[in-house]
């Protein structure tokens, strides 16, 4: 085999999870579009894209943490908190509204940094630390907005949720831009590499002299930032803020489902943000598929769960090859 062919083969092997998620999404979305009662229209795509982009941001946040072998159970509540905050400060004249955007992003980053500090400095287990902070974040959101309300700068909102030239959904461009700005520098920095190494073999990463503490902290902080972007985006989308407990929790759970669907290993070390984004898009489309076929909405959770189960089972096939049974528990 030529060197060039080898390059392709190894690249594919490495990005198998991401490629799987992308293909899964394309396949499901094709079924969705071709059976949509209204047929193909950019409006249909826009509606689907806006809903999916929200989850995609949270899934990307989740992926950052999961790659290090951790988990962020507060992602959904950071979204809720930033939604409430955005509905309070992203208002008024343009300079004021833009300052508000910065404020929301800083808040998200700070939430993530707190999670990271608890895990890295406080040495708490990620599950414990983020369950606790998720309650804190929700509490803050509730104080900020005891009842639903508020508003948001409409220019910014329309800019990010409408269509570009009456065709392509702006939300997807927004999503791609944010992911690119966060992911490309991170994944190509020594911190990104250290993040993967921690998830893959923490002691080997330490022995190799990688900056494992800073990398972990950065991963959690950036995850908070992305959840914050999601909260901001929800505000652009809904024009209000609401401390919605159930919705925060379901975003957390769905983000974990999306990450798994996107080929990111919950054990850490494997997968990418791009995969998680496709996982989120696919997960949302699966949910919408039933409406197209006029099924009773009651069936939606059952169907969604079933598809998820099948998709994640595929990743366990390799366990059949294990030659030492102890490796099942490693």
């Amino acid at each position, binding site marked *: 085999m030529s060197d060039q062919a080898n*390059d392709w083969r190894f*690249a594919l*092997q*490495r990005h198998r999870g991401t490629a799987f998620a992308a293909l899964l999404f394309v396949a499901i979305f094709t079924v969705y579009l071709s059976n949509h009662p209204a047929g193909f229209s950019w409006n249909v795509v826009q509606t689907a894209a806006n809903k999916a982009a929200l989850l995609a941001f949270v899934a990307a946040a989740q992926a950052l943490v999961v790659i290090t072998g951790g988990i962020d159970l507060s992602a959904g509540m950071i979204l809720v908190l930033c939604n409430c905050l955005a509905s309070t400060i992203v208002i008024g004249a343009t300079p004021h509204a833009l300052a508000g955007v910065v404020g929301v992003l800083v808040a998200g980053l700070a939430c993530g940094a707190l999670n990271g500090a608890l895990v890295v400095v406080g040495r708490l287990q990620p599950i414990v630390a983020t369950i606790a902070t998720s309650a804190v974040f929700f509490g803050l959101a509730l104080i900020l907005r005891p009842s639903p309300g508020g508003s948001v700068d409409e220019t910014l909102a329309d800019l990010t949720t409408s269509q570009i030239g009456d065709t392509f959904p702006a939300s997807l461009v927004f999503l791609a831009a944010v992911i690119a700005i966060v992911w490309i520098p991170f994944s190509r*920095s020594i911190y990104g590499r250290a993040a993967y190494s921690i998830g893959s073999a923490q002691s080997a990463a330490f*022995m190799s002299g990688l900056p494992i503490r800073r990398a972990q902290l950065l991963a959690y902080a950036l995850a908070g930032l992305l959840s914050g972007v999601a909260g901001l985006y929800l505000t652009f989308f809904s024009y209000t803020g609401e401390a919605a407990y159930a919705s925060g929790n379901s975003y957390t759970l769905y983000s974990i489902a999306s990450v798994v669907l996107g080929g990111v290993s919950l054990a850490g070390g494997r997968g990418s943000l791009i995969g998680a984004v496709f996982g989120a898009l696919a997960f949302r489309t699966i949910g919408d598929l039933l409406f197209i076929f006029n099924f009773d909405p009651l069936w939606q959770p059952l169907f969604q769960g079933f598809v998820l189960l099948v998709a994640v089972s595929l990743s366990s096939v390799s366990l059949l090859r294990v030659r030492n049974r102890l490796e099942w528990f490693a």
Partner: protein
Amino acid sequence: MGSSTIFRIENVSKRYGATVALHNANLAVRAGSIHAVLGENGAGKSTLMKIMAGVIGPNEGRMLLDDREVRFATPSRATDAGVICVFQELSLIPDLSVAENILLANPPRRLGMIDAKAQRRLAEEALTRAGAPDVHPNMLVRDLPLSRKQMVEIAKALARGPRILILDEATSALSQADVRTVFEVLKRLRAEGISLLYISHRMSEIEELADECTVFRNGRSIESFAAGAQSRQETIEMMIGREYKHVFPPKPLKPPNAPLTAPALTARGLNWSGQLNGINLELRPGEIVGLGGLDGQGQRELLLALFGVLRQWSGSIAVDGKPVRLDGPRAAKADAIGMALIPEDRKSEGLMLPMSVAENLTMAGLGRVSRFGVIDSNQERERVAELLKRLQIQTASPDVPVGSLSGGNQQKVVIAKWLLNNPRIFLLNDPTRGIDVGTKQELYRLLRGLADDGAAILFYSTDYDELIGCCDRALVMYRGRVVSELAGDNLTERQLLAGALNVSAIDEQKAAS
């Protein structure tokens, strides 16, 4: 040898609690030379290497690099100073590519971001230097076979620009052809002025490579000499000579022509994953059979294979003459088989540390204290009391967490928990590591008692003293094979060590006389 000393270790000591791992060790490494470090298990070689590589800190003594005192608080400090270690337990990240691993901590960067092209070029150069140009830099390390991983590990060390390169059993997983390649690489590095510290138990490798040798024994550096100044025999003599401090129960005297009992456990031509290579073994009721050899020669894998933990082995295993293929510990402990395995790491594989002593004691034999699937707490208490008494386990109460017990008492619990099942075959994986002398002696007596009651015992130990004192015969393993079987007057430290190093000590003795 005219080259100057660039690295010096002076009177370095390291203690773990009461255990002395290293005592006043000295070592001087010359520029552009290969220095071999020899010694038995637990002689202090690995501790010394870890201190040099900044993994652990010494309690006393100092290290001098270019005549200046240095302290390495972390592995990366040692790396910065040019002291680089190729670890036996691989330090590679399985989910990253070969190129990413080779330049892991210090990749080439442009505008703060990793320059993938330059990284690949540098990785290819390092692989070529390490003699492994066949490894593709974009492959994931997890997909490489063990021998290639070891070559990548060497390439990773070379890419860091070592001044002193430490190789700790770095050729243990390599094929003969790879070993040749690595030797050429090491000789070239020496010619380039790099100093190499080479830890190996293969005498032939050391004879070919080394310029100088230092022998360690019981945590002390015994002697340094120019390679070739001492014969194999003399070198082995230097490595042995530990103090005998244990008291062992007497071995039963068997009449010389007594008929052999039928073996309880038989293995024929057992192969697994390149780590077990045609093992033959017979274990009879009433005997304690030792497993010797240096660490990591397949002893652990053999015990796991017999206990049904490994899959896809070939060959045959028979219990009471009937072939079996066990699918796990549950099958192995069933009455028809009656096996028990005492694992090497009691904290992860032997005990549930937060659970109580009583719960741990009945863990493997719960079926015997329950009726219709419900645990009979009266019966459980009775059995637990019996076991505590029988093994004299020191505990404030059966209900305290087992993690609160001393190491020796924890180990007694690990063994005691199997006794409820009355096993007929015991597999022990270095059960006395890190426990006190008194408890060790109790364990020896317990094992002998079990054997006298008809149990067959396979006892892997890294302590030769134990193999000699406690076992009726011993099998020495080397690279997944049983290379010698020793019994009676042949069961000596010299013979055990010769087997472990895979050299024939008897022949040399004859040749010398």
